[in-house]
């Protein structure tokens, strides 16, 4: 299943490394990454594949949110379908 990970927060060293390590822990494969920094604010979006994820989706989601909270970031994972549904006709 494809999902979108979004990371938003103040720019700092090691955001990508940290989030990717967390994803690797859960056997989540990163397919695509894009990121920008606007006025010190870091925004990253990743397309990931959760097919081989070792844990249920809500556990993964909670782990990422936790990681974000500890690092002053908002990290969330949502199934890709919701963005497709809302923005594609």
């Amino acid at each position: 299943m494809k999902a979108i990970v979004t990371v938003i927060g103040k720019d700092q060293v090691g955001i990508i490394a940290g989030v990717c390590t967390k994803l690797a822990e859960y056997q989540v494969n990163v397919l695509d990454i894009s990121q920008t920094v606007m006025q010190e604010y870091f925004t990253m979006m990743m397309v990931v594949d959760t097919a081989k994820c070792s844990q249920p989706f809500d556990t993964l989601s909670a782990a990422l949110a936790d990681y974000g909270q500890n690092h002053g970031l908002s990290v969330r994972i949502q199934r890709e379908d919701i963005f497709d549904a809302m923005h594609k006709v």
Partner: protein
Amino acid sequence: MINQNDILSTIRMIDQQHLDIRTITMGISLLDCCDSDPKRACEKIYDKITRSARDLVKTGEAIEAEFGIPIVNKRISVTPIALIAGASDTEDYVPFAAALDKARAETGVNFVGGFSALVQKGMTPADEKLIRAIPEALATTELVCASVNIGSTKAGINMDAVGKMGRVIKETAALTADRGGLGCAKLVVFCNAVEDNPFMAGAFHGVSEADRVINVGVSGPGVVYHALQSIKGQPFDVVAETIKKTAFHVTRMGQLVAREASRRLDTPFGIVDLSLAPTPAVGDSVARILEEMGLEVCGAHGTTAALALLNDAVKKGGVMASSSVGGLSGAFIPVSEDEGMIAAAQSGVLTLDKLEAMTCVCSVGLDMIAVPGDTPAETLAAIIADEAAIGMVNTKTTAVRLIPAPGMQVGDTVDFGGLLGSAPVMPVHTESAAAFIARGGRIPAPMHSLKN
């Protein structure tokens, strides 16, 4: 890859603009639960609901987690109980409400609706017993909702039932006086009630529906409000287009959730109800949308026109986003559940008369309005009759959910808490309608009901 701006806009809608799925409602037919033994009938009702909706809450929570979209309520609607209880040999229908409440607690859903009777043309003995049981049923159960349909464009208005409902509302308020008349917040009087409404307190599962069905109600006044903030001063054509686009996005999300819930629960998908349902939270108000269009306060002259545009644009935007639209679909204007409406009512600008005019062009009716506790039953009945007449003549659903707050006067505020919010007590006309209500009988259906 999906456009970054689209992803961020979805996240903003959810995080900052209160976008949510208001409810996933499972409609369950109880027609196979009829039994001459009332105790046995209640057991069958409990069994069928708990069996059918066993995984409803769990599934809702799973979808919430995976899509990252809040699903505020999981609810159940059932066949109007008067139709089921009518088969039982009993005078007392309160145990049926108790069975619904017990099943509600077991399944963990937020509300169960359908302690209902459809009496637009006439009342069966079962309908009369159900209406008689409403005050006690609402006072003794926690989260069971009742509704009575007293009129329709096809049948006219059953004025005997209207008179009865005035008294039932008073009695319900008296029995729940210790909670500000809370029972009345769970009681809706309809004209042209719909059979697939997922919203409470008026939800019931119509007899023409399948055995089980999933209906979803979306929300999103905050999203529309934010969208309008970016087009200040522009003409109404632009306003309408902006609302349509926003409603499209919101409804698509509802459609996705509805399909997913339907698949996981192995239950047919019914409808998406494209309603703008406000909450008492700041930034989630329909009144503030109307004010954003250029009105100083909701209730000022121009409010009805603004609401007409909003209601129409929401439908036009939403209808293409879902394969099946139904329910009430439009803008709700409950007073106690809308932060902007509460403020407008408190300031005295928004009156009952203006609200009545607004109900001609919005999706439902006089909703969650507190009136003085000493308002006579006949006056309540006359308000219901007025509202039903609007629905009957305009071929639309209208509803009345009034709370004659016991012991309270104009200027007081009733606080229900949670999504039900708080309502400032609004003045009603004190001139009597007693002789009008005492006539009884039926107001005939309008000429345009004869379409064949």
